[in-house]
């Protein structure tokens, strides 16, 4: 596949690097593949987040990467009806090209899909391309999403969609029934993916809820902006943990070096002792002199009293 593309293009090299990384570390939460004819066109499918009305659902979508990727953000479009985002419409999030000022070049398709999963249960608050269905309707749509993948695009693209759907059906557990929760427990789960998804979900939800509470009286446009800002906190929070750990280790190393014994320190110890002794001697001398002066004063008093 690599031979077909222009390797001198930095965007192509970056996309191939991401593709290689995703192939070597596949995830149970999402899958994405580019088209054979155009590496800037991707198809993806995400699993509905756990413990929500979307759980068990398999939602397909399309990603369009710009020619200046990763310096410009991609655009995302969902194809499966889900009750949270409109289909066949570009999604408005801080990870998409609706807000290029919030995009970070270090983000990738993988981080974008993880963020998309985390944004499913959030409150849309009228954001562009968002829907606000009821929980029952969303669960119905989740069940329906597993039965068949959506029909979209050319036969080659449809073939890719079918392949992705088959992979996701085999990985994602079925939709849990409200009455019986044993069905979901029977299926094995990837603990690592679950840990990663859960670690991101609370942060994103917490950040979103906190910000939204502060902006209750804001107008629709401001709420849209606030919702977009919720994602950087979620994505960056996970990122920032690592640098702080590294700095702590570096600080520990420097502390260790400082505490190492050195010739200078050894040489100075006798010097300190001598100075301590000198200080004590000086103190004693001062006390003795004061006593002397006191004795003389007493004698003078005695002479005076004898005279009188």
């Amino acid at each position, binding site marked *: 596949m690599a031979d077909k593309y222009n390797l001198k293009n930095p965007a192509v090299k970056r996309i191939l690097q991401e593709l290689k990384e995703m192939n070597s570390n596949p995830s149970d939460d999402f899958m994405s593949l580019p088209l054979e004819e155009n590496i800037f066109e991707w198809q993806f499918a995400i699993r509905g987040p756990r413990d929500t009305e979307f759980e068990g659902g398999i939602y397909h979508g399309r990603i369009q990467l710009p020619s200046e990727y990763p310096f410009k953000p991609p655009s995302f479009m969902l194809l499966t009806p889900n009750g949270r985002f409109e289909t066949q419409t570009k999604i408005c999030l801080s990870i998409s090209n609706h807000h290029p000022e919030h995009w970070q070049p*270090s983000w990738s398709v993988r981080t974008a899909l993880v963020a998309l999963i985390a944004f499913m249960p959030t409150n849309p608050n009228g954001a562009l391309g968002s829907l606000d269905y009821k929980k029952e309707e969303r669960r119905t749509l989740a069940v329906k999403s597993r039965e068949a993948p959506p029909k979209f695009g050319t036969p080659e693209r449809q073939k890719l969609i079918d392949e992705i759907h088959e992979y996701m059906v085999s990985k994602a557990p079925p939709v849990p029934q409200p009455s019986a929760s044993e069905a979901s427990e029977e299926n094995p789960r990837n603990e690592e993916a679950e840990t990663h998804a859960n670690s991101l979900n609370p942060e994103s939800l917490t950040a979103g809820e906190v910000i939204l509470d502060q902006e209750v009286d804001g107008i629709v446009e401001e709420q849209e902006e606030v919702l977009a800002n919720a994602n950087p906190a979620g994505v960056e929070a996970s990122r920032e943990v690592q640098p702080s750990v590294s700095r702590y280790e570096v600080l520990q190393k*420097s502390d260790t070096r400082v505490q190492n014994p050195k010739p200078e320190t050894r040489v100075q110890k006798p010097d300190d002792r001598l*100075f301590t002794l000198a200080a004590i001697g000086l103190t004693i001398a001062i006390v003795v002199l004061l006593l002397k002066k006191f004795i003389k004063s007493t004698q003078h008093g005695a002479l005076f009293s004898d005279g009188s």
Partner: protein
Amino acid sequence: MTSGFGESTRASAPSPSCSGNSSNDAGDFECNICFDLAQDPVITLCGHLFCWPCLYRWLHHHSHSQECPVCKALVQEEKLVPLYGRGKTQTDPRTKSYPGMEIPHRPSGQRPQTAPPPPPPEANPFGSYGFGLMGGFIPMATARFGNFTLSTAFGGFIPSLLNIHFHGFQDATVYGTTSGYPFGFNGFHGGNTRGFTQATGQVQRQEDNVLKNLLMLIGFLVLLTVIFVW
């Protein structure tokens, strides 16, 4: 985030292929923008590694503010630190060329001053001088105290002068080194960490200097008292 997650995944899933292992080793030195081994690597104050061409393009053509592509911290070009390995620096066949863009040379490293030479031991002059004086006097009761005071005063006076002069030189060097680079910067650079260590040593010497000044003052007061009494 991507590299961190990748590393944890690789640890849990051992060696699916040889290329996986090799990429795992090089993950720590990959650019955060192009995900490839960093070419002309530069590192920001917040500790994130980039290719210089990638970072230059981001700062000068795409970023609305001078922010780090990973953590949005402020990036100042004059505070970027280049990494010099053992590879060829001049002609690199893997030169990354962005079309229609001339990228200048990456910022040069800010080399601190050469480390000061190790100072000679300081205890000898005071010790020998003090011992010599104290050993040569008569052991009488009254004269003993007086002579002890005199010898201590002399012992504390001359070494203080010498030490003040010596430490003045050292302090100037240390201040020159530390004023330009805050501790956070020193934490990420091996050479500067040594500078920080010496700074700690100098602090101890400054305390010794203060103590010597105090002793000199006390000696002077004792001399005044002796003159007044006699």
